[in-house]
């Protein structure tokens, strides 16, 4: 069976002023459907860059990236935006909710890009908020929610359009241990019970324990399976 994500010979170089920095070097990686992969490694090892490439937020300098057998490294900016809307749910360290919108309006954002009617969108938002246990807080604005609750809203937003992949960048980096464990348990539940493929970047070894696989990165290359 072909992997959900297939990365072949991917390099990524950034030019900052006169300096060109190679962040990823000829990287190969396969991620199976239904996997919960933790990408670990020191700062600057290239894990967030790799996550951005898989999520279609950035394009590689060389190599190819396939998701569900579709090459995404050659898509135009608009085609990539459409692809992200359909296939990827993003979860960030600092939640990145829109402060002027209520929790339910934040969750509804990805659905605005679909053909769903208002009633259908409302139903999907309610279901996503129920999955993360925040039905009671639907009308609250982000500043009326705790950090853990905001991250749950962000997870609901990532889930609501039923994406192929969930891409998480340090999802517990801004949370205390107890709240972090609750969020990670939720992600684990989404992986185990809803079959969601999750790729998570983390510095936190305890967070990585919730994943089914752990990969270590160093200096822009995979350094092997983490313990």
């Amino acid at each position, binding site marked *: 069976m072909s992997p959900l994500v297939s990365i072949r010979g991917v390099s990524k170089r950034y030019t900052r002023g006169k300096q060109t920095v190679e962040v990823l070097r000829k990287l190969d990686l396969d991620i199976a459907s239904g996997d919960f992969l933790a990408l670990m490694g020191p700062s600057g090892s290239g894990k967030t860059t790799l996550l951005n490439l898989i999520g279609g937020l950035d394009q590689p300098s060389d190599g190819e990236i396939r998701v569900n057998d579709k090459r995404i490294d050659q898509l135009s900016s608009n085609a990539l935006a459409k692809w992200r809307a359909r296939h990827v749910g993003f979860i960030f360290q600092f939640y990145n909710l829109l402060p002027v919108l209520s929790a339910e309006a934040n969750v509804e954002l*990805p659905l605005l890009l679909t053909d769903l009617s208002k009633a259908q969108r409302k139903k999907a938002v309610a279901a996503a908020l129920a999955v993360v246990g925040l039905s009671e807080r639907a009308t609250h604005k982000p500043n009326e929610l705790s950090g853990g609750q905001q991250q749950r809203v962000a997870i609901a937003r990532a889930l609501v359009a039923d994406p192929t992949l969930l891409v998480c960048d340090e999802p517990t980096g801004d949370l205390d241990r107890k709240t972090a464990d609750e969020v990670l348990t939720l992600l684990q539940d989404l992986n185990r019970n809803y079959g969601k493929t999750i790729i998570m970047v983390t510095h936190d070894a305890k967070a990585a324990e919730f994943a089914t696989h752990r990969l270590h990165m160093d200096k822009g290359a995979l350094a092997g399976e983490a313990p």
Partner: protein
Amino acid sequence: MRYLPLVWASLFHKKTRLILTLLSLIAAFMLFGLLQAVSVLFSSGADFVGANRLITQARVSFTQPLPLALLPRIEAIPGVARVAWSQFFGGIYIDERHFFPQFAVDPERLLDSYPEWTLPDDQREAFVRTKNGAIVGRKLVEKYGFKIGDKVPLKSFIFTRKDGSRAWEWEVVGIFDGQDEDWAGRSNLMYLNFGQFDEARQFGQGSAGVYIIRVADPNESERIANEVDRQFENSPDETKTQTERDWNLSFARQIGDIGLIVTAILGAVFFTILLVTGNTMSQAVRERIPEFAVLKTLGFSDGRVTALVLAEAFALCLIGGLIGMVLAVGAARVVSGLLNGSPVVVQPVVWLQAFATMVLLAVAVGIFPALRARRLQIVDALAER
């Protein structure tokens, strides 16, 4: 429509800034609506519709007097109901700060021509027979406390007496009021008996500044005006006859090209508004770069993000503009009253101009922030680089 709640919520990103910007827009569009309405009024051509009073002045200038000898020929024109004459006196009461208009008139003719003024019969008779008599409007009475029997000294900056003095004294013999609230509001003037004025003045005897013609049928006013002017064509006293409303407006027109003045003022106002609103939009987008990056991350295309920012600019300009224009309608009514009932109306064409201005303003203030949001790179914006 599905993006409307998002656009609406985004407007309230910084409430204080939103309110201040909206207030600026409201003030600008109120000024726009009002000044354009006034400009339309001043730039409009002669309008005889419904005019029951005409004013005849010397063709060259209203400062050139017309001989009273023209009276019989004007009275002889069919359709003329009553003719009065009036001479602006130009008197200063106490000092320059206490100026109010006074006109030397033939009492009976004046009061017949202006049934809108109400005056008790005995006071009317006193005004007719008292050569140095004067009647004062209710508003002047309220301001200066004039009462019947008072002697009012006026120093005319136009007319000297035969003895070389500019000091005139008038006896208050009546107090007139308006027949309704509108006319009562205009009663801040004084009428002087032409008798003393004409006898005692050093020059210009037997002449008046203007004739006031009351017409029997307002539908005939244009024909009568043309007939009056034709009567005195190619004579030493050529005339110009227009409706009372147009004559009043002609004073304001002498200030200069009202349209140009209005355009200049509005140009300055909208240049300032462009900077204020442009700054608001730029700041609003700059502060929300990470939010736009999130929208792009979620799959909003470059075009959609551009449209969202432009929609925000449109919403801002439309809300401010429409509120301003509604207030302009109210302000126009007030100004209309101040201009003695001249119809200052925010016409449909002004609404169209305002709407076009809102659209242009929205594009001008929204386009650069929108392009900035469009061009942002997600990865850089999320990393706040």
